[in-house]
């Protein structure tokens, strides 16, 4: 599904990713953990193609395609979805309109016919249940005036509608109370399929109580310094990141 080899990237001339190698297979959930400033969010943004980051080396293959050679919208149309750490507000554009435009952009790219507003509403009704929302949310402007938790839920709703092959969740758990966290986690779990994969970027272990990962990787100083099973997350919870970052520093 996703094959990252020795990926390096800079932002504003500063090297942030210093050689990431990571393979994610279909059906797997990988958690990317690490202290602040370790490059977690940068990795997520680079995979989605954010223009503020410059890839300086390495390769990323997604479903056999050179991901780094694709425009951000082409990546999205090919099934790469990024749930933003800070979802953007678009005043005056309703959630329904935005979601349908995104959904139809993907369909058009796949050579399918666009869905008309009525059929799309039927589809939405199903997806709204996942995040325990009523239809009134659809007439609100995209994220405008939403609370932090509502914005994150809205990301999950978009993900549910777009049914990505590769979902990247960038600190979707941060700033959520426990109820909202459960709703988000349930949404993600419900969308797990044998032919899709999830990359969870998180600072804390608590999300992993709800979404159980197949692999856990610890990022420090722009490199993966440790990989393991789900038990690694628990160890981190207990011991913090310092013992790993110190070790990484010693290696560097």
């Amino acid at each position, binding site marked *: 599904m996703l094959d990252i080899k020795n990926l390096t990237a800079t932002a504003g001339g500063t090297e942030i990713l210093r050689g990431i190698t990571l393979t994610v297979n279909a059906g797997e959930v990988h958690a990317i953990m690490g202290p602040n400033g370790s490059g977690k969010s940068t990795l997520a943004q680079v995979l*989605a*193609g*954010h*223009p*503020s980051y410059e890839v300086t080396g390495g390769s990323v293959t997604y479903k056999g395609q050179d991901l780094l050679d694709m*425009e*951000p*919208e082409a*990546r*999205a*149309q090919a099934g790469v*979805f*990024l749930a*933003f750490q800070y*979802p*953007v507000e*678009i*005043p*005056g*554009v309703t959630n329904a*309109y*935005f979601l349908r*435009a*995104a959904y139809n*952009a*993907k369909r058009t*790219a796949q050579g399918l016919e666009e869905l008309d507003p009525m059929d799309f509403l039927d589809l939405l009704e199903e997806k709204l249940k996942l995040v325990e929302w009523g239809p009134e949310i659809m007439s609100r*402007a995209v994220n405008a005036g939403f609370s932090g938790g509502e914005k994150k839920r809205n990301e999950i709703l*978009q993900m549910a509608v*777009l049914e990505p092959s590769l979902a990247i969740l960038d600190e979707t758990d941060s700033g959520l109370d426990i109820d909202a966290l459960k709703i988000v986690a349930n949404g993600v779990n419900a969308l797990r399929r044998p032919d899709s994969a999830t990359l969870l970027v998180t600072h804390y272990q608590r999300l992993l109580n709800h979404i159980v990962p197949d692999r856990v990787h610890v990022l420090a100083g722009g490199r993966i310094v440790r990989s393991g099973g789900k038990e690694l997350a628990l160890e981190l919870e207990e011991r913090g990141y310092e013992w790993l970052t110190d070790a990484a520093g010693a290696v560097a």
Partner: protein
Amino acid sequence: MTSPVESYVQQDYKYGFVTDIEADTVPRGLNEDTIRLISAKKQEPAFLLEWRLAAYRRWLAMTEPHWPNVQYPPIDYQDIIYYSAPKQVKPLGSLDEVDPELLATYEKLGISLSEQKRLSGVAVDAIFDSVSVATTFREKLAESGVIFCSFSDAVKDHPELVKKYLGSVVPAGDNFFAALNAAVFTDGSFVYIPKGVTCPMELSTYFRINAADTGQFERTLIVAEAGATVSYLEGCTAPKRDTNQLHAAVVELVALEGATIKYSTVQNWYAGDSEGKGGIYNFVTKRGKCAGARSRITWTQVETGSSITWKYPSVILQGDDSIGEFYSVAVVNNRQQADTGTKMIHVGRNTKSTIISKGISAGRGQNSYRGLVKMLPKAVGARNYTQCDSMLIGNACGAHTFPYIDVQHPSASVEHEASTSKIGEDQIFYCKQRGLDTEDAISMIVNGFCKDVFQNLPMEFAVEAQKLLGISLEGSVG
């Protein structure tokens, strides 16, 4: 590296062509003889010539206003041609006699003057340079008593109405450009809706500047008698030229008791090139008077063109319980400058006004909102709500807000909200990450921003305005 937004904003002005047509043109320059010549060409009654000359004498003593937040080299008023009209041998009996070249020009602009085509049930007055070349559906409108004709025809056929209302809202000496217009105005549209009549179709005027070095000085007068209702639209385009051309128009609206006038503008004059060369100076005075109780005047404008825009469509709320509204989208790109807004003058009791202004600045454009809300001593219980939002695209543009509030009665209430936002790479990236391309993303974000204004435009023009907005901003994000 060109950012996606930059490359999006550069798109060509598709109305920039010139029609090759023989014109009757007066010599360059302005003096009393020019005015007498224009008046004679139009075979005007004496009162109108006198009115023009008085305005001209007032104008001579006035100075060009320099308080707007715009910059341009001095205008040489002696270097302008004040009258240019396509030559036609005899007066037109019907639309069939309009020069085919002119009909073709309007077809090319997307305006059909053929009544058979019945362009969405909209009646059109077509103004080409200094004169009206055709007005459609005149007979059909006359059946319900509605008068819709060129200003020149109104002077000939309804001099008493013209005499009664001309200058009643914007006096001849109101300001520098209004005085200039009063002296030299050549044509425009005239609308009269009799008592209790709801105008059966949308009325519109399409202004086209064609000849080089001419100024366009048109004058529009709309009178809605008690209980009458009318919706009127204007559109405008001009050829691409590397010299500036002056457009100084005056629009007067009179709404009597319980009457409603909705006046919508989609302004797309040539804006100059990316370095600011050429384009129209759009220096316009628009004002409506809610003369009767419970009358209502609504201005909706979408300003995308002109190199410089200077206009403040205003409402004098004289009648008790009258309502004034101003909905505006103003877009500047490249080197365009706009200083636009409104004046709401509350005179009567329980008068109410709403101002929604959306300014979009891109490229190196400078956009200013300037508004006055004035509550006079007798405006008991008057209310105003103002919302003034600016959007910046890129780092080289500017947005400015100059709200003036003058309240002279303690029971009046004035609310003002303002915001400035920047359409950033993050907003665009968010849309792209959801599969939308840059063009669709910008168009969606900008249209969302303007939604409150667009929903006040008649349906087919709202669609037009949305498209126009996309075109004006093409290449703007940097």
